[in-house]
């Protein structure tokens, strides 16, 4: 496998896009900074070590002023619009930089706080999110409300100056490293479906919270169950209106759908370069037919990566014009998830049987890649949304 780390030519991402030009000062500045600061080694396979690298890398980004490009300057960001973010992620990928540790905080909770959070919460949390001093995780899904979020049952009640939370969340990414969990709770016990919920920020390090990591088929404990058993959070830690949590969650999802970090075409195109190199070196492990079939798949996936690039650009341009991403989010999510899965399969296939050896990067990638069509809304849910809301087919 190719693991060399170097700054790649941006031409591997495809034709330059005039709205996000290669010679843009923002891009040039970040590129220079990355050349001097990116770690230059790949993320380790071991998840604990991976987390530590990401935390260190976020600290480096923070120190350089690059941790939250989309955040306003007064809270430590750069006020970068969607097109600058498009460039930002492309440059990170070209530099083969790690991810940031606190993505749920930077991309989801932080922006949501800025829209509907109290001044107290903003002051309390925004700096720590950006610096990775405190790590955040997202508690939305429950065992019996996976795709059907409105049926959630975790409940919270005010007890004097504190919320008391009882219930169980699942599929919480990297909860074992988190200091806080933002939890969607039912706060009006008589409510049903979309009504009567509140988004609460709950400290994880307390007796009422138990985190049980769930190991995935890839071997990573990437997700966790989080049990709330009389867990306590200050009354002021409600994000947005009390009993208005569904609206708050929808705002948060808008940020998720518009963030290109989740659907990053440029990391895929960089990965494809490595896969192409592996394929060139595969003569001793692939038969002529397997090789021919693999190169056709490679070409096909390259086409889809280029299309994803356009989808992300479209999201950025529309965001720049103040338009909501709307149904486009489901299109990009569905498209990305299947591409993520297929690219992972390709990355293994080029190694022939050796791509299936345990504990190697290609096999880890292969297994982890199956999550793309399940996390953040299954492909099935996305297809429902596209068919019913975009195409207007009857329910």
């Amino acid at each position: 496998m190719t693991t060399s780390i170097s700054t790649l030519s941006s031409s591997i991402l495809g034709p330059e896009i005039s709205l996000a030009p290669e010679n843009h000062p923002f891009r040039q500045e970040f590129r220079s900074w990355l050349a001097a600061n990116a770690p230059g080694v790949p993320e380790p396979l071991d998840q604990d070590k991976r987390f530590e690298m990401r935390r260190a890398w976020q600290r480096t980004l923070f120190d350089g002023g690059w941790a939250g490009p989309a955040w306003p300057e007064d809270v430590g960001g750069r006020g970068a619009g969607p097109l600058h973010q498009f460039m930002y992620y492309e440059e990170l990928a070209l530099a083969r930089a790690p991810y940031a540790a606190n993505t749920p905080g930077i991309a989801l909770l932080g922006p949501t706080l800025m829209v509907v959070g109290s001044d107290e919460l903003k002051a309390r949390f925004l700096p720590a999110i950006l610096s990775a001093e405190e790590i955040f995780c997202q508690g939305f899904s429950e065992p019996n409300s996976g795709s059907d979020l409105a049926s959630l049952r975790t409940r919270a009640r005010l007890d004097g100056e504190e919320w008391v939370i009882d219930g169980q969340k699942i599929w919480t990414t990297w909860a074992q490293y988190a200091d806080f969990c933002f939890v969607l709770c039912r706060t009006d016990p008589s409510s049903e479906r979309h009504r009567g919920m509140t988004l609460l920020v709950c400290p994880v390090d307390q007796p009422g919270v138990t985190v049980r990591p769930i190991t995935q088929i890839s071997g990573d404990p990437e997700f966790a169950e989080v049990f709330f058993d009389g867990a306590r959070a200050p009354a002021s830690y409600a994000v947005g209106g009390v009993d208005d949590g569904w609206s708050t969650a929808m705002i948060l999802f808008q940020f998720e759908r518009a963030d290109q970090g989740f659907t990053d075409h440029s990391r895929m195109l960089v990965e494809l370069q490595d896969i192409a190199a592996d394929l060139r070196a595969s003569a001793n492990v692939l038969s002529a037919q397997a090789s021919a079939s693999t190169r056709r798949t490679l070409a096909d996936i390259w086409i889809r990566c280029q299309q994803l690039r356009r989808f992300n650009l479209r999201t950025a341009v529309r965001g720049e014009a103040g338009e909501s991403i709307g149904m486009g989010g489901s299109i990009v999510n569905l498209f990305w998830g299947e591409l993520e899965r297929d690219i992972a399969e390709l990355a293994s296939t080029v190694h022939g049987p050796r791509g299936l050896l345990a504990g190697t990067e290609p096999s880890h990638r292969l297994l982890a890649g199956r999550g793309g069509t399940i996390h953040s809304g299954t492909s099935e849910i996305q297809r429902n949304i596209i068919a019913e809301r975009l195409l207007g087919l009857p329910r």
Partner: protein
Amino acid sequence: MTTTVKLNPEQEEIRSVARGFLNARFPAERVRELMRTGTGFEESSWKEIADLGWTGIALPEERGGAGYGVVERCLLLEEMGRVLYGGPYLSSAVLAADALALAATEADGTELLEAILDGSTRATLVAAGDLLGEADQAGAVRAAQAGEEYRLSGSGGLTLDAETAQILIVLAELEDGRSGLFAVDSSAPGIALGHGAMIDETRKTAFVEFDDVPARRLDDGADTAAAMAHVLDRGAIALAAEMVGGAQKAIDMTVAYLKEREQFGGPIGRFQALKHRLADIAVAIDAAREGVYSAADAVDSGELDHVPLAAAAAKSAAGDGYCLATAEAIQLHGGIGFTEEHDIGLYYKRALSGQPMLGSSVDHRERIAVGLDV
């Protein structure tokens, strides 16, 4: 600004005018009448199209064009694809005009180009296997020089609108093995047209054979092969745009049918299995459209290094997407979709017939693999 992830007002206007004009002139019943004629189109609307400035939309003003780009031409082609327009736009205004503008010398090409752009002359490109994706394309037409004159002989392959074009622009192999570009009068002696109608009756094709046909050379020999490769890439992008338009229409027709057709006590569009298939198709066509405009953007912003792969990506995704969308549309229409009288079948045949034209999906993927150095 040359990205089209969001159209500018002028582009919106071009699209809107095109849709209005084409819907008015080419409702389905008119398309069916025209496809049953030998020519497949009517002179009157061709003249209108020239007068609208569409024939030269992607060429610079100094060459008599409208000074827009390939992007704007793709907008027109999408709309033409929606109505299954069968006239000589792809042959004359795209392939032949681009060849004259980009591969001929100004001295040799300008007069003919002007006649194409004003609609008074229709031309088509003869490029042997290149144009219709056959394998045995190398040097199918040979050009022999005799003094100032050239004579062409050999098989030109399946050619768009060969029966109605007045001028054939022919890519031929010179005696020294290089490529040359020639203009031939379609009434010249020695030209034979063979039956080559495809299952898509809305677009006319024929086999062209040359037997010692007098021809006028158009290029100066400098980089004709490279220039013509670019012309064919622009042609592939244009055809891909047309295919995306047709595919979108197929989706629209299917969605409408699923909302209207009732079985088992309600519209069949409520069945989730059908919904999910349509969602997948809608996403594939949305992606294919982005691929087309990504390639068009690359042309218009002069990113020429990226054009060959972007054009290959555009054509293969649009070709596969159009075939998928129309095949599924027939299936989802049930028995009625399988009848000659339902329009969806015309789209399916157009999709299939377009697949080999200007390179099949398989062959374009191969180009991409080569381009990615594997």
